[in-house]
């Protein structure tokens, strides 16, 4: 009985958590493209104006970033200005929660058919590498190891701390700007 009563609250909490995580990740993707050359080397291969979306099906929370050129990504907080070029879609809110709460690695979620790719698969592979690099930077190593297939052996603490601080600072600034706007 209690479980039944709590269910809507749990669902609401999950939805809010996933929505918040997408907002953080969207801003963090923009930030990492500004501070990390390796990420820019990956994103430079995307066409300029390329729109990438992660969404929970059918109309759940989403994040959208655009490649604005030279590997730089821009987070679109108000939705896509035009149809997206590549969409990675979680089939259900529960699946998104499993991944974004680091209970299931992104690669495992793909293997488990939790997500669909709509668009060029090779670019989806590239964006997955960017997401993995982001998670390796901004999450504590113990948590990151639960999120990515393999924690990068060449990512050492000083580089990680410095990059993470710069990314978090940019994310916080972006949030403040959003509130002010």
């Amino acid at each position, binding site marked *: 009985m209690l479980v039944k009563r709590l269910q809507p609250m749990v669902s609401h909490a999950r939805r809010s958590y996933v929505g918040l995580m997408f907002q953080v990740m969207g801003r963090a993707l923009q930030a990492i493209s500004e501070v990390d050359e390796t990420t820019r080397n990956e994103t430079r291969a995307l066409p300029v104006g390329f729109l990438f979306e992660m969404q929970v099906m059918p109309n759940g929370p989403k994040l959208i970033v655009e490649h604005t050129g030279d590997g730089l990504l821009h987070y679109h907080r108000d939705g896509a200005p035009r149809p997206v070029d590549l969409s990675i879609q979680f089939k259900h809110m529960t699946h998104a929660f*499993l991944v974004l709460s680091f*209970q*299931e690695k992104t*690669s*495992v979620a*793909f*293997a*488990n*058919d*939790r997500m*669909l*790719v*709509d*668009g060029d*698969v*090779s*670019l*989806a*592979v*590239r964006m*997955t*590498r960017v997401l*993995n690099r982001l998670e390796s930077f901004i999450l504590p190593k113990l948590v990151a190891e639960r999120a*990515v*297939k*393999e924690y990068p052996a060449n990512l050492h603490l000083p580089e990680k701390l410095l990059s993470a601080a710069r990314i978090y600072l940019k994310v916080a600034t972006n949030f403040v700007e959003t509130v002010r706007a």
Partner: protein
Amino acid sequence: MTNNYYEFFCPVKVIAGKAALEHIPYELTGLAAKRPMIVTDKGVRAAGLLDPVIAACEESGLEIVAIYDDVPPDSSTTVVRDIAKVYRKEKCDSIIAVGGGSAIDTGKAVNILVSEGGDDIAKYSGAGILKHPLKPFFVVPTTAGTGSEVTSVAIITDEKKGVKLPFTSSFLLPNAAIIDPRMTLTLPPHITAATAMDAMTHATEAFTCMAKNPLSDAYATAAVKKVSQSLLQVMDNPKDEHGRLELAQASTMAGIAFSNSMVGLVHSLGHATGAICHLPHGLCMSLYLPYVLEFNLESIREPLGELLLYLEGPEVFSATPASRRAEASISSIRKLRDALYKRCQLPRTLKETGKVLESQLEAIAEMALDDGSIMFNPREVSLDDALSVLRRAWA
């Protein structure tokens, strides 16, 4: 609580064994199809492989209304449109694809056009676009390796744009796959070897990659066992009908396994090498398999060790210490490749192919990193990792 989860799907009726072709008329009638069209290539027709298919239908009073026998090795949107025109003109109501991967993929794409309408196959490209079942579609494979008869994917080249269009939908799966040993009896030795190693790679990667599951495991291990037991016998005695059937079944089983568990780095490198150096897919699979298994070894030690039972049999398996079984599995695959090299010079290294330049390795590695199958490789692969595997495979 476990987070384990998997999906498994294969609705294809498999009709396999002696006189399997003679079941086609009955199976077509069961789907209310009376005017089938055959889609094939010139090689299949020249080898006389259409004759038993046509005879099987005619003996049951079923007329093959149209035959298109000009499918190229890399089928294109134009070919698909042309075949659809013939299908409509002749008022056909079903398709029988007879051939290897290209004829089968073409049959799948034609089925989209004639079922959904229109002349532009490109607009159906992508995943999940199709929403309805298509026309009755049968596949008669003439090679034992691709497993295309049980996969829900087709690749067609868009000549104008110069890109390969992928089509993915469970509706692309044929209603039936007809596995008849007569269809592979005349395969030349090097194609027999390369396609069987393609099936071996499908099964091995299916058994060791991230999306492996209990059902795909069952198909994968059975396929590995059949290839291990029959390939060299068939190479020594090409007219061995039993061995040919075993390889054909192994190919289908491996196809069912990998289409439900996906594949990994062997395929990523193979796809890139095929695109850049134009090497046949099966050859690439055979070439890269041991090197990729060595690269993945510490992530797949347990399942790879289990494969030794199916590669070498219970005696060798039980005589090998558990800690050495994974390495023994790789050795077994290397031994098989050596035996094939001795019999038909199936290349074991990139240098032996004579078609790859050392200067192309970097381009192959870069392209492989963006291949979809790399997502399911058990180990993360960097550019340096891919290059080191390629250098080991070089010579």
